[in-house]
Each structure stands twice: as structure tokens, then as C-alpha cells.
């Protein structure tokens, strides 16, 4: 019940931010939409400890900045590949062990890899191995496990 209301509240706030309209009618419509979305999604109840929230938010901000830098660096790399007349791609699918224990952890690792230009998770194995298609498989394979270790440490600092 608490998880349901929490999700409905978040959806409501997002709706209000998008519409930027605080008239009573809009407040009611947003609330109804939020409740409907929460009812469809059936959120899982998860213990929320407020004491950990500031630390988690700080780690989330740090992770976002790190991801942003990674995205820009790889964006430039992909730009160089696409603009090069010789088109120097070495595509391939490499296996990267995620090392995460939870499904959420694997999903977030896969998201971080896929949001980075030049790498994209095609399939996730039962053991959490991420089969990643890379534009340049040689250089990606060289740094993949190190990058995943860093990513994992950051994600765990947010959620644990």
C-alpha cells in the first residue's frame, strides 16, 4: 500500500512538473493519472530508510557525472569513427560479466553500457553476463571489465 502511494505521488509530481499548472482541476487529473499508473505497475514494497537518502543522492549525483563524462568521451570516439572516410569499425559481441547480485543491478549496469555510444547490450545471460555489441570490439574488450568494476562499485554505493 505504501509503495503504491509512493509511486502514485512520484507520478503526480512528474505530471505537475510537465504540465506546470497548479489549478485544482489539473491537480485532480494528475492525481488520478498517478493512481492509475501505480495500479497498472503494481510496485514492489521496498524498505526506505531516510537516513541513507542524502548519501544515496550524493552517490547518484557522482554516478551521473561519471556516466556523463563517459558518454561524452565515447560520443567523440564514435563521431570520429563515423566521420572517418575509411570507417574503421571492428564490430563484435563481447561477454562482460556484470558481477551484480540483483536483477536491478544487472539492469542498471546494462543501461549504463547501452547509454554509452559505441556499446550496446544485446542479450543478458542467466548468470548476469552482458553480451555487448561494440563498434570497436578490440578497444572495448580491453577496458570492459575494469569499467564494469568501477560501475558496480558506484551502483552498489547508491543502493546498498
Amino acid at each position, binding site marked *: 500500500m505504501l509503495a503504491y502511494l509512493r509511486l502514485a505521488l512520484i507520478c503526480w509530481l512528474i505530471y505537475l*512538473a510537465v504540465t506546470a499548472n497548479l489549478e485544482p482541476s489539473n491537480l485532480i487529473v494528475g492525481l488520478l493519472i498517478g493512481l492509475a499508473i501505480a495500479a497498472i505497475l503494481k510496485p514492489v514494497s521496498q524498505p526506505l530508510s531516510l537516513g541513507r537518502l542524502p548519501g544515496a543522492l550524493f552517490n547518484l549525483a557522482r554516478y551521473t557525472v561519471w556516466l556523463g563524462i563517459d558518454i561524452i568521451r565515447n560520443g567523440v570516439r564514435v563521431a570520429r569513427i563515423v566521420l572517418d572516410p575509411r570507417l574503421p569499425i571492428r564490430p563484435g559481441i563481447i561477454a562482460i560479466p556484470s558481477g551484480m547480485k540483483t536483477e536491478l543491478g544487472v539492469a542498471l549496469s*546494462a543501461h549504463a553500457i547501452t547509454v554509452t555510444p559505441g556499446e550496446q547490450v544485446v*542479450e543478458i545471460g542467466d548468470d548476469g553476463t552482458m553480451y555487448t555489441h561494440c563498434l570497436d570490439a578490440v578497444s572495448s574488450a580491453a577496458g570492459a571489465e575494469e569499467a564494469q568494476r568501477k560501475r558496480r562499485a558506484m551502483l552498489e554505493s547508491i543502493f546498498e
Partner: protein
Amino acid sequence: MEIIGQTLALVLVGIGTFFSILGVLGLMRLPDVYTRLHAAGKVGVFGAVFLAGATALIIPSLFGKAVILMVLLVIAGPVVSHALASAAYRMGIAVKRAIRDDLADERKRRLTVKDSTTNHPV
């Protein structure tokens, strides 16, 4: 202050347009569905994210909308391109010019394990 915001917005428009063009260029030049997804699904999304960022700076009343649009694009973009890549692989579309394919090796291994268990009932 307004001049700083507008200059920054101009820079963001430039970067966003550059990435959008790059996405289209990659879509035309790259050889197969997987590599093209890199260009269209991600580089293209960044174009849109930067343009939304510029909108947030130029039109203050659209700030909330633009920021939420950026967040949603960054969350949903990779999900879409993963779904397309996964579907393409399951349909058996080949990875062109591949120098290695760990997933194919893994599938072969799984298939042979399955065969050996089904062909030789205990």
C-alpha cells in the same frame, strides 16, 4: 545572466545539431542493423537531449518539461535500442564484419548441452 544562458543554449543547439546529423550519417554509412542502432538509437538521442537542454535555458517556462524530457530520453533510449538489437539477434540477423561473437559461442555451447541431454535419455 541572460547573455550567459543564451550563449550556453547556442552552444547546446550546436552540439545537439551536430549529434543529430552524425546519427543520420551513421545510419547511412554503417553496414548492419546493430552498428546502425549505435548511430540512430544513441547518438541521435543525444542530439535530442542537447536540444532539450537548450530549450530549458532559452524558455524558462518550459524548464520542467525539458528536464523531464531529457531524463526520460536518457532512460528510455537505451531500452529501445536494446530491445531492437535483441529482437534482431533472435531473428538470426547476422553481425556483419564481426571480429568476434561471444554470444554465438555461448548459444552453440548451450545447444550442444541441450542436444546431449535430449539425445541420450537416462
